[in-house]
């Protein structure tokens, strides 16, 4: 049975007799490359659910949007690996109650990068996209149909994803997938580290000078759910709101630190950035430090305290002056 079919059947069961009041998933959107979020309460609507390469958005984020909306309701949600980490994070950060969430993990084969798909289609309009979970994905247009290698259109974060499958879930649909190793994921970080200090600075500067402060990265980030983001606060004036380089850079650094131990490495920020800034590099660096120093990865262990809300007495402190 395909993942999609099994998902529909599971959700139907859950709504009928599984004790959930609401299910959050995706349906085909108005654009063929972007699935739309779907909230269903009627078991009949389970047939509308899809699960494929176009399901890039994170359905867990609704738990942070209006904390009252799910009060007194048991909610089911379908989750990719990264989404499940967000869900776990939200539970740890008191945005949701574990007892009131039914987590349905699904075999994730990665999500697409719209830029890459557009170039694969040679800039032609895409009217239909078929993804049956195999090695190729079919793109159809007015006068063409092409099969493209799945990997060639995947988001770069998916290509180096170490946790494609939901880690914490009540139901899992599909087959667990082979993931890349941590070292593979950190290849770019290691390569960057090998550069000289000046070179690293020049590259960082070159990258972040592009920032136009549109905040798309923040807006799409599942871990950014503050009521008012620090950049939008003027008491105190945390940071200048200009596109002057140091203002932008500090905004991004603080964002990296705010998502330290919380970034689920979904890559949404990088996909959202209109200026193609390589936003993953710094997040990965921080995630690597969090793992090496605090032995924690965001949203991986529902029993562990979030890294930045915790400490150990005998932690490595190599950075303290001797």
């Amino acid at each position, binding site marked *: 049975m395909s993942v999609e079919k099994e998902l529909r059947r599971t959700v139907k069961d859950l709504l009928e007799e599984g004790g959930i009041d609401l299910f959050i998933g995706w349906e085909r959107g108005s654009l063929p490359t972007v699935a739309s979020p779907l909230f269903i309460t009627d078991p009949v609507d389970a047939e509308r659910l899809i699960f494929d390469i176009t399901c890039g958005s994170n359905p867990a984020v609704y738990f942070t949007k209006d904390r009252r909306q799910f009060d007194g309701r048991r909610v089911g949600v379908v989750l990719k690996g990264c989404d499940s980490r967000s869900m776990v994070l939200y539970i740890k950060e008191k945005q949701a109650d574990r007892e009131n969430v039914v987590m349905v993990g699904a075999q994730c084969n990665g999500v697409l990068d719209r830029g890459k798909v557009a170039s694969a289609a040679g800039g032609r309009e895409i009217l239909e996209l078929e993804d049956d979970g195999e090695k190729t994905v079919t793109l159809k247009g007015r006068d063409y149909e092409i099969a493209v290698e799945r990997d060639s259109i995947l988001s770069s974060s998916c290509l180096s994803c170490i946790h494609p499958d939901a880690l914490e879930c009540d139901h899992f649909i599909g087959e667990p997938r082979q993931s890349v190793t941590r070292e593979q994921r950190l290849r770019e970080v290691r390569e*960057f*580290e090998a550069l000289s*200090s*000046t*070179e*690293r*600075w*020049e*590259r*960082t*500067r070159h990258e972040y000078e592009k920032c136009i402060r549109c905040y798309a990265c923040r807006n799409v980030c599942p871990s950014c759910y503050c009521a008012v983001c*620090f950049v939008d606060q003027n008491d105190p004036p*945390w*940071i*200048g709101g200009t596109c*002057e380089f*140091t*203002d932008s*850079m*500090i905004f991004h*650094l*603080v964002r*990296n*630190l705010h998502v*330290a131990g919380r970034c689920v490495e979904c890559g949404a920020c990088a996909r959202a950035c209109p200026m193609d800034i390589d936003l993953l590099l*710094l997040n990965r*660096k*921080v995630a690597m*430090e*969090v793992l090496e*120093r*605090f032995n924690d990865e965001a949203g991986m262990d529902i029993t562990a305290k979030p*890294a*930045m809300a*915790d*400490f*150990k*007495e005998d*932690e*490595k*402190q190599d*950075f*303290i*002056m001797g």
Partner: protein
Amino acid sequence: MSEWQPRILAILCNWCSYAGADLAGVSRIQYPPSIRVIRVPCSGRVDQLFILKSLQSGFDGVLVSGCHPGDCHYISGNYVARRKFALLKPLLEFIGIEPDRVQFSWISAGEGERFAEVITKITEDVRKLGPSKRLVKKT
């Protein structure tokens, strides 16, 4: 006198490091006049953004100093702080900020001598690097 004098912001916790600085003075231990001190109740009070803003404001270096592990007047504030610094320091180094510009230390109320040593050390480190340029906002 024409020699360039680095200016370093020192954020010191009230109970240990600030007291250590006082002891250095009371003991008349001499160290370079490079630091400008902000007193905070605890190193746990230090937001990473304070450090970034200090660099942006043009300080040539930043030192944050708290109580030794186990000595925190507020039981565990320095441990909370340590996790923050443990990420900020490598992150800054990663993007190419000279590692010696931002340093952390533990100095107890009894360590006047050590306070002077730490200030001397960071001043020399920063002096070698010259005036801060990266991350300084041009006005």
